[in-house]
C-alpha cells in the first residue's frame, strides 16, 4: 500500500537540502520499524517518493511524501509512529492514502502557493511591480544548464501574484501561485524578476489541477485555490 504524508519544514532545518530531508525520513522510518518496502538488487533502497523539491532555505507547510509499505498500516498510525522521530522543524501534518490509480506527486502537482516576505519595499511599490509582471506578454530568462544556454519564458508559470501587509514593519508580503509547467519558478527567481531581495519564503499549498478544479494531494474534494481565498478576503 501507499501512505501519503503531508509534512512541514520550518525554522533552522529549512537550510538543509531536499536530499538531506530524504535521508531524515529514511532514518526516521527505520527507527519507527514500519514495514517500508525496499527495492531489490545489490543496493536496496526504501521506496519513498518525494514531490517537488523545496529549494534550500525555504520553509513549507505543504511537503508531500509517498511511502510504499509491504503490509497494510493505518495512515494515522504511520503519522503517530514516525512523527516524534523526525528532527525538530520537520512535522507530520497529515497522513492518508492517495486516490487509487493516481500518478506520482511529481507528475500530478501543477502549481504551488507561496507566502514570501519581501523586505525593504512598500506595499504600493510592490503592487506596481506585480502588475507590471502580470501585464507582460513574456518574461524571458536565460540560464546555463549543463553547459548549454537555455532560454525560458517564466510568464506562463506566474498564475497569480498578490501583496499583503507584512507581519512586521520591514516590508511587504507576497502571496504567489506559481505553476510547475512548462517549468517551475522558484521564489528566488520571482524576487529576481521583481528586482527585490528575497526574505523568508514558505510554501503553503501544492495543487493538482484536474478537470478545471484544484485539489490538494491529500484531499479528494475539489478545493478553491488559496489565491482565490485570498482574493475573496
Amino acid at each position, binding site marked *: 500500500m501507499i501512505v501519503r504524508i503531508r509534512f512541514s519544514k520550518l525554522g*533552522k*532545518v529549512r*537550510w*538543509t*537540502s531536499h*536530499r*538531506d530531508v530524504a*535521508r*531524515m525520513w*529514511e*532514518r*526516521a*522510518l*527505520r*527507527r519507527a*520499524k514500519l514495514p517500508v518496502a*525496499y527495492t531489490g538488487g*545489490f*543496493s*536496496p533502497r526504501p521506496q519513498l517518493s518525494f514531490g517537488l523539491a523545496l529549494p*534550500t*532555505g525555504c520553509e513549507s507547510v505543504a511537503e508531500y511524501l509517498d511511502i510504499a509499505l509491504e503490509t497494510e498500516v493505518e495512515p494515522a498510525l504511520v503519522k503517530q509512529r514516525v512523527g516524534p*522521530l523526525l*528532527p*525538530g*522543524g520537520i512535522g507530520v501534518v497529515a497522513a492518508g492514502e492517495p486516490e487509487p490509480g493516481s500518478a506520482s506527486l511529481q507528475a500530478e502537482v501543477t502549481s504551488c502557493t507561496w507566502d514570501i516576505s519581501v523586505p525593504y519595499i512598500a506595499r504600493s511599490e510592490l503592487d506596481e511591480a506585480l502588475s507590471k509582471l502580470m501585464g507582460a506578454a513574456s518574461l524571458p530568462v536565460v540560464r546555463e544548464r549543463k553547459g548549454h544556454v537555455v532560454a525560458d519564458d517564466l510568464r506562463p508559470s506566474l498564475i497569480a501574484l498578490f501583496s499583503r501587509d507584512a507581519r512586521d514593519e520591514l516590508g511587504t508580503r507576497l502571496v504567489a501561485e506559481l505553476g510547475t509547467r512548462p517549468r517551475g519558478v522558484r521564489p528566488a527567481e520571482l524576487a529576481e524578476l521583481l528586482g527585490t531581495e*528575497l526574505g523568508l519564503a514558505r510554501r503553503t499549498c501544492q495543487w493538482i489541477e484536474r478537470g478545471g478544479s484544484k485539489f490538494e494531494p491529500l484531499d479528494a474534494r475539489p478545493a478553491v485555490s488559496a489565491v482565490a481565498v485570498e482574493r475573496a478576503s
Partner: protein
Amino acid sequence: MARVTKPARYIGGELGAREPLHEPGRVAWLLVYPDTYEIGLPNQGLQILYEILNEREDALAERAYAPWTDMERAMRGAGIPLFSLETTRPAAEFDVLAFNLSAELTYTNVLNLIDLAGLAVRSNERTGDAPLIVAGGHCAFNPEPLADFVDVFVLGDGEEVVGEISEVLLDRAAGHPRSRHELLRALARVDGVYVPALYEARYDGTRLVGVVPRSGDVPERVEKRAIADLGEWPYPKRQLVPLMEVVHDRLNVEVFRGCTRGCRFCQAGMITRPVRERPASQVDEMVRSGLARTGYDEVALTSLSSADFSGIEHVVSSVINDPQCSGQVSVSLPSLRVDAFTVGIAAEIQKVRRTGLTFAPEGGTWRMRQVMNKLIREGDLYSAVDSAFAQGWRRLKLYFLIGLPTETDEDVLGIAELARRCAEIGHRYHHNVTLTASVGGFVPKPHTPFQWFGQDTIEELRRKVGMLRDALRGARGVSLRWHGAEATAAEGIVSRGDRRVGRVVEHVWRAGGTFQEWSEHFDLGLWTDGLKAAGLSLEDTVYRHREEHEVLPWDHLSAGLHKHFLWQDFSEALREHGLEDCRWTPCYDCGVCTGMTVEHVVASTVPPAGGSQGTGQDASAGGVMPVRFVVKEHEAHEAHEAREEHEEMVGAGASGGGA
C-alpha cells in the same frame, strides 16, 4: 545564510546534540574541529569527549567547526565571532577552546579560528580570563609547531584527562581568580598535559639541542595518557546524527584501540599502543542499540585493522543474523587486511550496498614491504583480489606509498606490476573492472621508526609518479591516482618541525592560507615564503635525514615507545627485516606495555584466521601461535639489556640512515 554554500553546516540540530546550561561551577568547553562541519562532525574523539564532559556535573561542552571561506567572510563582515553550534554563544565566553589535531595542514585553520574567536593568536599575548586554548589528537605528539599559539596540549587518550583538567579549571569557572601563569603550572602537573610556555627550546646555532623545563616543578618528559580498558568507556553512547550529509555518514563503533602490526611508517599504530579490545558483547550491544537509536543502515567497525579484532566473526554473524536488521544493514570494515579470509568476511557482511573494496599493500615489492614491515606476500594480495572479483566485486582500490627508505625505481615500478596483475585477475571474472592504484608520497612522522628518514623531494616524487604513469599507460582496467607532491612537502614541514616552524604556520595564515587540506586552497608558495621568512628551508626541515643522536623536537614527549627501540626497528628496516605482531608472538619491548601500567587486552590467544600479514608466519589456517602477553619484570629487564647490547653494535655500523 542564503548566500553561503551548504548553510546546513551552521545550524546544528543533530540527534544527540545537547544544549547545556551555562552556570557557575561548570567549566565550559568549546570543542573545535579545525576543518569543515562535514569532515569534523563524524570525528569520534570529539564526540566521545562531548558526551563525557556533558555527563559531568562540573563541566559542559558545545561544538564548533571551521566556517567555510564564504561564511567566514560574511561573519567578519558583520562582526560575528566564532560561535558554538548549540547555543550560538561567542567562543570567547567559554573557559576552554579545545582543538582536535588530526592533520598538520589544518594548523593554519587553528590560528584562524582563534583569531575569529576574537583572541590573540599567540599565547603570550592572551591574558587574564581569555579562554584557555587546548589541543589534542594524533598531531599533538609533535606539538612544537603550535607551541607559540596553544596553551595546553594533551597527549594520548582524552577520556580521563578532560575531567582532571576540568577540576583544575573549576576554581576559575567559579570566579575564583587565579593568575594565568599559576593556572598553567597547575595544569602542567596533570599527567599527559604539556604546557609549552613552561619549556624552553634551546638551540646551538641552527640546531635544536633540547626542549627543557623552565622550572623544576614541571616534568622533564611528558608521558601520554592511555585508558586501560576500552570496555569501561562505551562511548559515544549517543552518536550525533547530522541533518546534512557528512563523511562516514553511518554508525561507527570502535572495536579496539591501538595496533601492534608494527607498520614502520604508521604513526597511528605506534602512538596508540597497546592494543585494547572492546568486549565482543559490548560491541554487539553498541551496534544494536546504535542502529535502533540512529536509524542508520550502515555500521562501521572501526579500528586500525578491524579484521584483527578477535571477536570479529562473532560480531559479524550476530549483526547479520539479527532479525531487526533483516538484511538491510551493511557492515563495513574501514581498514581491511589483505587476505582471502578478510574478503570472505567482507562478502558476508556486504550483502547489501556493495560498493568497492580497498586494500593497502602500501609497497610495490616484497623487499619494500619488508622494509616498511607491511608483511603481505604477493600471494596474499592475489588471492584476496581473486576472491574479491570471484565474489562479484568489480571495483578495487589499492593504496601505496612512495618515497620510503631504501626505495629503488624497481620498487616503484613494482606498484605498476601489482596493479596490472590484479586487473588481469579481474578480467578472468568480469569484462569490465576498475582497479585504482592510489599513490601517496610518504611523510615521515614523529614517534615512528622512520622519524629519522629524509622525505623525498617534490621533484623526486614527481619523477616516480611519472614513471608509474608511463608504466601503466595502456594498462587495461587500471587507473592511477596520486596526491599532490607539493602538499606532501608542506605536510613534511609541519610533521617534524620544531618550534620555529610556528612562524611558518603563522606566515601562511596571515597570508590568507586557510583550508590547506583542500586542493583548491592549497598554495605551496605561501609555505616556501614562510620558510624563507623564518630562516628555514625545505632542505633542512623536510628532506634532511636526521642523525641517530640528534635531539628531535618531540624527545621531551613520550608515546611510551623507547627511542632506542625505534632506532633499532629503523635499523632492522634498512636491513629489510620484518618484525612480528607482538599480540601473538613474544614481546620485543617497544616500551609501551612495560613502561605504562597498561597491557594488551585481547580476547583470544589465537590470531584470526588469515594470511601471513603482520605475523610474518603462515597463519592462513588460523591456529595457535606461541603467545606471551605480558613480559614479567625480570624478563623485561633482560630483554632490555640484550637489546641495548645489540643496539650498540647496530648503532656503530649504521649511519644517519635512509636511502
